[in-house]
């Protein structure tokens, strides 16, 4: 995992395309690094917007007095994690804030944008609308768990090949959603892809490239 505090390419030029190896593949480190920089910039924008709109409300989604945290176990990306969270903590917040898995993004936090999409038991869900405590014993997969070591999942590779993003903030959710989509009974047309991916909003409007990425990536096994 690359350190989000360090520029991934050392040039400070966030707009640079990720470097592609001779065989057309990009390493997971480079891909994640690029996505993290884009995500961090937009996340900062989101937070300041949110603070303005709510008169300086704190960024945390927890309000009022706390209740005692409860010990829970989550199976994330093949690893079991023991953690203590309040029952009101969403799966998204537990992943990001307790487990440090910040690949899953917080966009609307109301189930409308899809940036938080993860797989639970192989099915795509909005991690912002379920509580961590409810997901014990379930197999959870996040964007961090998609690759095999340094080898990207075919859907990640396809998003790179088709330039299926601009700022990158929605990208982890788009990719997780596309992996879930590929396992569902949809037809083969682009209209099916657009309908099947309707739960993921891209504010940059990279949809034509996203559709191309999903079209190309959907049939390929990890």
């Amino acid at each position: 995992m690359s350190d989000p505090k360090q520029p991934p390419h050392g040039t400070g030029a966030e707009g640079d395309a990720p470097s592609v190896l001779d065989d057309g593949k990009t390493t997971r480190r480079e891909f994640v690094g690029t996505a993290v920089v884009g995500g961090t910039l937009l996340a900062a924008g989101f937070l300041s917007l949110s603070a303005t709109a709510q008169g300086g409300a704190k960024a945390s989604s927890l309000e009022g007095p706390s209740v005692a945290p409860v010990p829970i176990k989550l199976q994330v990306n093949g690893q079991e994690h023991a953690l203590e969270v309040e029952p009101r903590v969403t799966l998204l917040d537990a992943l990001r804030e307790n487990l440090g898995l910040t690949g899953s993004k917080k966009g609307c936090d109301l189930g409308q944008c899809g940036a938080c999409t993860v797989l639970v038991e192989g099915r795509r869900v909005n991690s912002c609308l379920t509580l961590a405590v409810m997901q014990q014993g379930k197999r959870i997969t996040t964007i961090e768990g998609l690759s095999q070591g340094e080898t990207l999942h075919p859907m990640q590779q396809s998003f790179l090949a088709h330039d299926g993003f601009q700022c990158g903030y929605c990208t982890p959710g788009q990719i997780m959603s596309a992996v879930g989509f590929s396992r569902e009974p949809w037809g083969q047309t682009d209209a099916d892809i657009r309908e099947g991916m309707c739960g993921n909003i891209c504010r940059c409007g990279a949809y034509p490239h996203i559709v191309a990425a999903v079209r190309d990536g959907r049939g390929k096994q990890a």
Partner: protein
Amino acid sequence: MRPIDYTAAQDVRGALQKLAARPLESAPIGGGTNLVDLMKIHVQNPALLVDINGLPLAEIQEVEGGLRIGALVRNSDLANHPLVRERYPVLSEALLSGASPQLRNMATVGGNILQRTRCAYFRDISQPCNKREPGSGCGALEGFNRMHAVLGTSDKCIAANPSDMSVALAALDATVHVSGPKGERTVAFGDFHLLPGSTPERETVLKPGELITHVSLPASRFAARSRYLKVRDRASYAFALASAAVAIELEGKTIKDARVALGGVGTKPWRSAEAEKALMGQPADEVHFKAAAAAALKSAKPRTHNAFKVELARRTLVRVLALAAGLA
């Protein structure tokens, strides 16, 4: 989100007991897509969540030619079930037109039936809302009411019921099965949701401490000839401006029997006996589809911004009747 306690139940009896232990402040949670959303914006503030996902209510079974659908069946599983696609296509189409694939993978049948309105005044706690806070007034009556209901409204509430699935269930003569502290009971789907009248805070006949356990669909001679059509502001992932679920039985070119329900325009899933009556025994043609549509919307009470829904709902119904009759 405010602090909550959490407990998980493994069977119906256990869930009812846990709910009854703190009857005024507990709520069951299934998919959570609606409840967690409303908890985040402080519209619903239960102090105790009883997780019912461990209950054995996630099966779809064939019963006497009909279907018994567990309350915890996920919307996507119901929509894609072979028997639903074959025998009740209107239900599959309605489900697949609702929400997003992620939400459909989470949302349950029971929760969908109990889905709260998307009225912006209901969802904004700085605004008056008789449904959320009885007696506080209604911001929608004279406010921005473009998305609101034109059928079944009152001078206290014009909030539209947002469910697509429920419109199909209304057309299919579904029955809701409920368990509570006093035992089990069944409610005809048409009786399950209440009109707002002077008590818009009461949305269904479900009593505190009761759980929906399953929904049953009767065998039907003609539900295989059923369709759902939804009209919205964008092609996908939006609530209905108007929608219609219909099933028709044809004998030659004559309509022998019909079921008609409307969505997006009613304060509850809107079964239209008037439209059905106008179709029965008549030729399946545009003239009679239009007559049925006029009958369905006859009692409509449009407000400042939603008058367009009356004509839109009529045209939606005419169109879906033509689709179901194989004429479009």
